[in-house]
């Protein structure tokens, strides 16, 4: 018997083949099941973490969208506001409206006789109540001499007490911040339906403030808007132009390789480094103003540019060569081929990349700290050159504040920021499905 015969003889019988396949099949199925389990497990874990994150943020932040208000009968005493009867805007804007609030409060709670008691009484109402009164008078000077019923914001501590009451768990810690006498007054006002939680409009329309009940995100939102506007206007055209040049026009050479490597490296540079660069170049060298959204936008442009370039190049690369050949074959120039055929097909990918880059820029705070956008700025910015802060930096500032009223506002600001990011990413998805064309 030769070796070949021997080999032929050792061929598996059909039964043995089936048995072995069966055994290996079971092993394969087990592995597949395990792999699926790992995948499902990690997805579930991710979802749990995400829900936990959203859950805590919403649980902490939702109460900031409501604010305690007190209803006061304000007598717009012309002798107090405008003793000279001039009725001009200057006089009205500097008048002492706090007196009106104080007298209205005293009417409501007449027994507060002593000086100390009166001070405690006055502390119930927010220091910002006077602004509401001034606004009312400035808008309509005829109001002088009349008595009007107005809802004025309460102090942050009172606001917290009301929210603790409303949630059912009387928070002793909150109550301790208010005196016995104040609690008595508040309970009386509550019984009279004079105080209630209402929609917190100030949170969306005000700039920053030291008083939690007056602090709003409008200033930071506008700052972020101007910044993103600058970033979009600069990074999208520049990024797309660079991508087109590198992808369609540049000849392979060591110089292009160097540029390519550096773009990829720039995309991975920590953002705070861009902040330092912005500080050194834009502020110290070019002398642009500190805390300005323009500088923030320039810094974020540097940060976003590599992302836009990389996404745009990928989108251009994904355009099938048959389309290019068709265009060139009919006599289109390189330029016409790019602008008539490649760009329209690559546009959804480019836009998606740009929006994702912008979303990253919107959430960035570290580089902005370096260029002074971390300052406490009360005024709502009027343009890209006026000092301002940005949403993530505002969150950082509030998270750092000692007043307890800012805890909820921090979470609420995070919710607003997340909502913006969600909208931007949804836009990216929508753009992609809307403009994506089949070929």
């Amino acid at each position, binding site marked *: 018997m030769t070796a070949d015969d021997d080999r032929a003889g050792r061929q598996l019988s059909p039964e043995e083949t089936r048995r072995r396949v069966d055994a290996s099949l079971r092993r394969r199925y087990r592995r597949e099941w395990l792999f699926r389990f790992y995948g499902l497990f990690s997805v579930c874990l991710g979802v749990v973490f995400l829900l936990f994150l959203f859950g805590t943020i919403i649980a902490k932040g939702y109460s900031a969208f409501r604010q305690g208000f007190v209803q006061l009968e304000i007598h717009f005493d012309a002798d107090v506001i405008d003793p000279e009867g001039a009725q001009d805007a200057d006089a009205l804007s500097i008048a002492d409206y706090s007196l009106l609030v104080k007298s209205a409060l005293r009417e409501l709670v007449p027994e507060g006789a002593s000086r100390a008691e009166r001070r405690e009484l006055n502390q119930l109402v927010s220091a910002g109540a006077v602004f509401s009164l001034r606004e009312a008078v400035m808008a309509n000077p005829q109001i002088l001499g009349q008595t009007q019923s107005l809802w004025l914001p309460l102090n942050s501590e009172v606001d917290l007490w009301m929210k603790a009451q409303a949630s059912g768990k009387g928070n002793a810690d909150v109550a301790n911040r208010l005196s016995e006498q104040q609690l008595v007054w508040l309970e009386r006002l509550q019984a009279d339906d004079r105080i209630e939680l209402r929609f917190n409009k100030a949170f969306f329309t005000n700039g920053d403030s030291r008083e939690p009940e007056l602090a709003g995100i409008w200033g930071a939102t506008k700052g972020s808007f101007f910044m993103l506007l600058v970033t979009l206007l600069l990074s999208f055209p520049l990024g797309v132009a660079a991508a087109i040049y590198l992808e369609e*026009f*540049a*000849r*392979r050479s060591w110089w292009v390789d160097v540029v390519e490597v550096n773009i990829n490296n720039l995309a991975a540079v920590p953002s705070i480094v861009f902040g330092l660069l912005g500080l050194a170049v834009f502020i110290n060298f070019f002398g642009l103003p500190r805390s300005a959204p323009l500088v923030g936008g320039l810094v974020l442009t540097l940060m976003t540019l590599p992302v836009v370039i990389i996404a745009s190049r990928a989108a251009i690369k994904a355009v099938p060569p*048959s*389309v*290019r*050949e*068709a*265009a*060139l*074959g*009919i*006599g*289109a*120039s*390189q*330029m*016409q081929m790019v602008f*008539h*055929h490649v760009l*329209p*097909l690559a546009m959804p990918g480019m836009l998606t990349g740009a929006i994702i880059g912008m979303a990253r820029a919107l959430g960035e705070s570290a580089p902005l700290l370096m260029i002074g956008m971390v300052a406490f700025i009360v005024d709502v910015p009027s343009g890209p050159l006026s000092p301002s802060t940005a949403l993530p930096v505002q969150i950082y500032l509030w998270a750092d504040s000692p007043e307890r009223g800012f805890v909820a506002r921090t979470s609420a600001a995070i919710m607003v920021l997340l909502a913006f990011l969600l909208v931007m990413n949804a836009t990216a998805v929508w753009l992609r499905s809307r403009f994506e*064309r*089949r*070929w």
Partner: protein
Amino acid sequence: MLTMNKAQNVVAAPVNAVPAAAVPGDAERIAPDTVGDVTARNAVICVRGGNVFYGDKHALINVSLDVGRNEVIALIGPSGCGKSTFLRCLNRMNDTIESARVSGDFRLDGEDMYAKGTDVVMLRARVGMVFQKPNPFPKSIYENVAYGARIHGLAANRAELDDIVYGSLERAGLVDEVKDRLDDPGTGLSGGQQQRLCIARTIAVNPEVILMDEPCSALDPIATARIEDLIDELSEKYAIAIVTHSMQQAARVSSRTAYFHLGRIIEVGSTDKIFTNPSHKLTEDYVTGRFG
């Protein structure tokens, strides 16, 4: 346009003893490596000593061939033999491949295609190309056909453009099928219709030569038959060079045939002669189906 200038630098490379004469003399009627007569009566394209390198790979070795007016010349040969490479040289589509270098004498109507002053856009307007896979633009049928005329400024107004589009669709035998849906996307047509749309797009520019790179390889037999009929009709007006893997197709549509093998043109002759009485052993082996 950067990629397009590269080939010009190597045009001056020495070309195998073939002077850059517009009209070949008797001595050049037969290229050194090729059996048969490479010249055509009334030639529109004239190639002498063409070489193509892809990097280090010598893809086309010293080929010479004419394409005559109103003739269909079939380029046949096994895969990788250089026939598509040769075709792409004729309207400088190889310029788009970065590693490709072209040398030799390529003439269109006696003008050097690879000369420094040659405008490659103009060249491609005169030498149109139909590709292997139907590749209509992802635009409407009308826009597909109108595009070439529009970028070359062939139509002065909308009415002229309409005439060009309808005329081209008619000559491509597509007008009856699409006249009611000119605004539909060209990519929505069937494969055969797409290929005829690509042909209509090519002839809308009114080229002198049409290059076809295996235009039927992605189509079913009925669509193929329609394209072949179309090639027949078009040959009355245009010079056509067609690369094909199907010897039956070559026999059906062409009047002359060139057989390529490993980057060389082995034999050129009338289609009848190549398929019934080839002179070279390799040609005979190929057309009788012994390899390929």
